[in-house]
């Protein structure tokens, strides 16, 4: 009912705008005095009107009304939409030398990540690539070494799936001996995003070039300033690896690998080489820098796990979390994300008492393999101290461990693949702090 009203209001506003033709002309004209584009001003006016819909609808309720949107013509359609100026989600820049930015998980609903809020991790900046001159070279242990243009790639049968991608360093802060209580979902696990990724299956391309049966790895390199390289087992090529050129219905964003990238569902993000320009089939891995000196996991027995691709099951409550403060006792919907690189999330449990008791959360449909799953649990806060936890179980029977289990298995010096249970401590005053267990 509510959504129907909003939709009607938007349609009416658009029609009114058309009648008056009030904002025609070049929407890109700049207002020299303010530096704002006219488009932004129009969007602002529309949003102000939108915000006032509520005020208009509450006439007589004693609320302050700046402007009654039912009494002024609304804004016209625009060629490119924008957010309400009241909504200002932002990525959090992090990492040395500006190498990463984190998705504001706590600001999002459902499972999809808006493309402009998708996390970033790159190793030497974002290259500018002309799609007209882009080429993907596939060579090595193949019958027919080939160059593919972007248009060539788009001519092949397309695959498209909703998938998460996560940096293997995501959540590293949760390993710290004394994690900062002022962490947010974004600062802890914001190197996680979910999109619909569209492209061509790498298996289709490997059929096309005549991959050799004795090839065991394919080496992928980007055309960024680091010429980022990773080696990927051929199993993944024949399974579900893809060359993606679209994200959430539009071309991949430059920071996500425009015009084309490798995408390896469920695997650590680093191996999904962005801006891919070369793939070489080989009978051995390349032993690139980012699969030897980085992205390997030291173990207590004096070894280091290498090619640890799969992201194991994980979950995090994104609401309510720091810095939100609960205003009064009563109903609170606990909600968050669960995901696993091994397939489907089978179960998410929530505890409000630090793990003494656990309750099954509702999994929001769709529950998809190698994609984030939204979970929800309705909680009645009694005004007392609480400790909110979530733990995910995947279809292999793997359950998200507590921190000590991970430390026992991998030691305190571990960095990557941090998936221990995250938690949030609620005080009597309603304040919330990050408190993993």
């Amino acid at each position, binding site marked *: 009912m509510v959504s129907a009203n909003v939709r009607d209001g938007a349609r009416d506003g658009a029609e009114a705008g058309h009648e008056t033709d009030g904002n025609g002309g070049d929407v890109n004209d700049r207002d020299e005095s303010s530096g704002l584009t006219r488009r932004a001003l129009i969007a602002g006016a529309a949003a102000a009107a939108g915000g006032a819909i509520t005020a208009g609808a509450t006439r007589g309720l004693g609320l302050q009304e700046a402007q009654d949107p039912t009494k002024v013509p609304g804004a016209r359609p625009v060629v490119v939409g924008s957010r309400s100026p009241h909504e200002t989600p932002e990525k959090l820049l992090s990492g040395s*030398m500006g190498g990463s930015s984190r998705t504001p998980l706590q600001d999002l609903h459902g499972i999809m990540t808006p493309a402009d809020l998708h996390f970033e991790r790159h*190793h*030497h900046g974002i290259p500018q690539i002309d799609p007209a001159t882009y080429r993907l*070279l596939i*060579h090595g242990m193949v*019958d*027919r*070494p*080939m*160059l*593919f*243009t972007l248009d060539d790639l788009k001519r092949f*049968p397309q695959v498209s799936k909703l998938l998460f991608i996560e940096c293997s360093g995501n959540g590293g802060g949760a390993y710290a*001996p004394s994690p900062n209580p002022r962490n947010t979902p974004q600062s802890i696990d914001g190197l996680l995003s979910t999109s619909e990724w569209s492209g061509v*299956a790498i298996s289709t391309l490997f059929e*096309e070039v*005549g*991959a*050799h*049966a004795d*090839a*065991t790895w394919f080496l992928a*390199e980007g055309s960024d*300033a*680091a*010429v980022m390289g990773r080696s990927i*087992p*051929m*199993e993944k090529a024949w*399974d*579900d690896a893809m060359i993606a050129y679209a994200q959430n219905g539009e071309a991949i964003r430059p920071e996500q690998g425009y015009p084309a990238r490798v995408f390896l569902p469920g695997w650590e993000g680093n191996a999904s080489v962005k801006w891919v*320009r*070369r793939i070489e089939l080989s*009978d*051995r*891995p*390349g*032993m*690139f820098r980012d699969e*030897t000196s980085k992205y390997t996991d030291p*173990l*207590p027995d*004096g070894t*280091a796990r*290498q*090619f640890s*691709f*799969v992201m*194991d099951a994980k979950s995090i409550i994104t609401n309510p979390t720091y810095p939100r403060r609960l205003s009064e006792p009563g109903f609170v919907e606990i909600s968050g994300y669960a995901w696993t*690189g091994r397939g*489907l999330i089978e179960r998410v449990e929530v505890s409000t008492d630090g793990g003494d008791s656990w309750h099954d959360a509702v999994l929001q449909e769709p529950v998809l*393999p*190698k994609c984030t799953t939204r979970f929800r649990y309705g909680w009645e806060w009694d005004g007392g101290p609480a400790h909110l936890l979530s733990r995910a179980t995947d279809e292999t*029977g793997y*359950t998200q*461990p507590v921190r000590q289990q991970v430390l026992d*298995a*991998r*030691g305190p*010096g571990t960095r990557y693949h941090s998936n221990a249970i995250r938690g949030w401590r609620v005080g009597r005053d309603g304040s919330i702090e990050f408190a993993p267990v």
Partner: protein
Amino acid sequence: MSRANVVSRLLGVAALLPALAACGAGDSGGGVEAGNASSGAVMVETTDPVDGATGRAGAAQPVYGFGTPATESQIAAWDIDIGPDGAGLPPGQGTVAEGLEVWERHRCILCHGPTGREGPNDIITGRIPGDEFPFANDRSLRSTVGNYWPYATTLFDYTRRAMPFDLPGTMTDEEVYAVVGAMLYFNDLLPADAVVDSAMVVDTRMPARDRFVPDNRTGGPTIR
């Protein structure tokens, strides 16, 4: 290193492959099959446990005919990776002395310090007594070329493709050989009078060479 060493090392890595195939089996996502005229259903075929090969080959003839054959010169222009067996190492050589000069001339020193120990960015230099590998147990340890990098070929590869940071990929092969020599010298892996060429890069045995093991996580209830 010897070829035999390379082979045994790679066999170890290949041991993880059956587990990877199993992980994919849980993915019910369809779509890959649709429209693939030649291959029918995409499935992971029998994995050879010895060498990791899938046993699956691509089509004997092009399926769609899209794309352009790549010439040898086009491949050579982009085929820059150096294998752990030394494949791809270019002709040429450099001395440690020249490398120390390159270290300053190309401003390596600004990020890594005069001897590779000082930072502020990645630490190049440092060995651990006995060449132990206690990284999992000591969170304060910093990994270096001398205590963590398993292959000197990787050092050549990465330096040539990505360094110096503000002018990546601009050093000559001779400069790269020389500065790789300097970094190995910093780590007491080469003498000060060493001449570095492809054989030297392949034969320099890195202290952490045998520390790396395949991923043994397989899903299921065990935490690894």
